[in-house]
């Protein structure tokens, strides 16, 4: 039914072969997964130890000149390595995968490796990339044409069925255009109509990956240009939710539109990425509570890309969309695992933030990602002062002790 591109299979086999050869060649420092540089001592424990040599005061509070040791050590540790900024750039690989872009510590190893690398460049740029670009072009044009044609039909079951067919076909062609190999796990938990599908966000390709296996209603901002054309035609065949830039600011309006969509049980499940920005697929950052206030059933999905074949993370500060897509098409392949997790609903007495954190932890656990509470918005914005005030408060209670009247 959909275009099977037979050439991509042997090519993927070849790239796997090349990658396995590397393990004999590589000479890089094999460090384990970047272990935490920090010791995990809480403020109380650490400062308590620093004060060990002094007599304890009756109210338990104290100030010593050595208290600064704790803050300076934590500060220096965060300068050497911190949990947040590393998530906004591509993951470091333990062993090189023959792509220059992941080669951070270039040094010449051997002639054989260089020849392999050169061969890889030729294959990727001269053979794989043109084929993939052609496929992607076919996929997108078919999406636009197909959905417009289906849109001409009157509303009926046939129309819905045809619309799903067109969407699936196009996304599958596009996936082939990226040489995406996706393993879907637990398909019985797939999102159903009237629900909300939430997933961790690594790149715009996530949409293609997920839509390969099911039909979703997309949510997003109205764009101009080619994206706008695609958006407008998609909406003709089945309802998606596109917001004008001005509407995005009005949270009530957004929530209401999403709620209306969810309450209509005939409509496709909404696909939302609650992180709000692309993260490098080593961790899951704070889920914004907006999606969790709508009230529908949440279907969490975990997406984990295999970095050996290509880096799927979109660093929007460094690359625009076109150069990003070109990089994708000149990688070896996009290999990823998608886990459908069992549906979750908000429990009694749980507020939206707690619910969001619960879903986030489930996704992080399944995908083997680090569960962070930091906001993905820290990519661009400064951290809020309230966090510093929390630290100051915590320290103050150590200075004045337990029975302070302040």
């Amino acid at each position, binding site marked *: 039914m959909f275009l099977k591109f037979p050439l991509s299979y042997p090519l993927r086999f070849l790239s796997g072969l090349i990658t396995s050869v590397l393990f004999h060649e590589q000479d890089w420092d094999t460090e384990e997964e*970047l272990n935490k540089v920090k010791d995990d001592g809480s403020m109380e424990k650490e400062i308590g130890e620093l004060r060990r040599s002094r007599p304890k005061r009756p109210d338990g509070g104290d*100030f010593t000149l050595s208290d*600064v*040791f704790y803050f300076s050590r934590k*500060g*220096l540790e965060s300068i050497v390595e911190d949990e947040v900024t590393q998530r906004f750039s591509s993951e470091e690989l333990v062993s090189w995968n023959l792509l220059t872009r992941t080669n951070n510590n270039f040094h010449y190893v051997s002639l054989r490796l260089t020849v392999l690398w050169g061969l890889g460049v030729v294959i990727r740029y001269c053979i794989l990339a043109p084929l993939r670009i052609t496929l992607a072009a076919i996929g997108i044009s078919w999406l636009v044409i197909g959905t417009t044609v289906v849109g001409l039909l009157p509303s009926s079951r046939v129309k819905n069925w045809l619309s799903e067919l067109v969407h699936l076909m196009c996304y599958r062609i596009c996936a082939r255009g990226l040489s995406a190999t996706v393993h879907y796990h637990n398909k019985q938990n797939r999102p159903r109509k009237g629900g909300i599908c939430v997933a961790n966000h690594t790149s715009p390709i996530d949409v293609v990956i997920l839509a390969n296996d099911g039909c979703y209603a997309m949510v997003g901002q109205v764009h101009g240009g080619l994206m706008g054309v695609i958006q407008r035609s998609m909406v003709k065949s089945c309802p998606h939710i596109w917001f004008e830039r001005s509407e995005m600011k009005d949270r009530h309006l957004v929530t209401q539109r999403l709620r209306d969509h969810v309450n209509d049980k005939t409509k496709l499940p909404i696909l939302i990425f609650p992180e709000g920005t692309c993260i490098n697929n080593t961790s899951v950052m704070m889920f914004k509570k907006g999606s969790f206030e709508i009230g529908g059933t949440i279907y969490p999905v975990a997406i984990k890309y295999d970095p050996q074949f290509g880096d799927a993370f979109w660093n929007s500060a460094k690359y625009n969309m076109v150069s990003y897509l070109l990089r994708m098409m000149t990688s070896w392949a996009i290999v990823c695992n998608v886990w459908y997790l069992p549906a979750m609903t908000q429990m009694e007495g749980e507020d939206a933030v707690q619910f969001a954190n619960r879903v986030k932890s489930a996704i992080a656990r399944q995908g083997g990602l680090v569960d962070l509470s930091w906001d993905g918005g820290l990519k661009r914005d400064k951290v809020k002062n309230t966090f510093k005030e929390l630290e100051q408060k915590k320290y103050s209670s150590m*200075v004045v002790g337990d029975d302070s009247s302040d």
Partner: protein
Amino acid sequence: PLWCDKVLLRASRRVEIAYFSHSQITRLYSRFHSLDKGENGALSREDFQRIPELAINPLGDRIINAFFPEGEDQVNFRGFMRTLAHFRPVEDNEKSKGHDASEPLNSRNNKLLFAFRLYDLDRDDKISRDELLQVLRMMVGVNISDEQLGSIADRTIQEADTNGDMSISFSEFIKVLEKVDVEQKMSIRFLH
């Protein structure tokens, strides 16, 4: 690209080679490079403040200041490493080749000096009551009243001050903290 800066890297290693291994220096340079958003080979205060965990540290600004020499706004990679070298664990000194007789940067004394300079805002080698109050205020925020903070500062100076000048000199500072395990508390693990 990162590998072009290897020349710079080699030049930087002269002094710091006693403190960090080759792979540690490479890793630190990688980190320096990722913090250097302006890509001009030097870090500004804003570059440090972009680290969220540092921005929420009550003494974040004082720590950042420790990297910048008097009156300067930029720190290069050598300066970056020099400041970090203070926090190298002391036991690693057996492996390094001390190339001159002067005290290593990560000695107990130099670690204490680092902490002393966090308090000594005007760099006059004395911690005055005013300076102590300012640093205390940074650490506790709005949660303690001026009077209480003042009495804490007075008490601290009283305990430490031996020559009666109502301020804490570096030798008095060392004396007060002689029982504290400075070597362990002011060290961080640099990955090999």
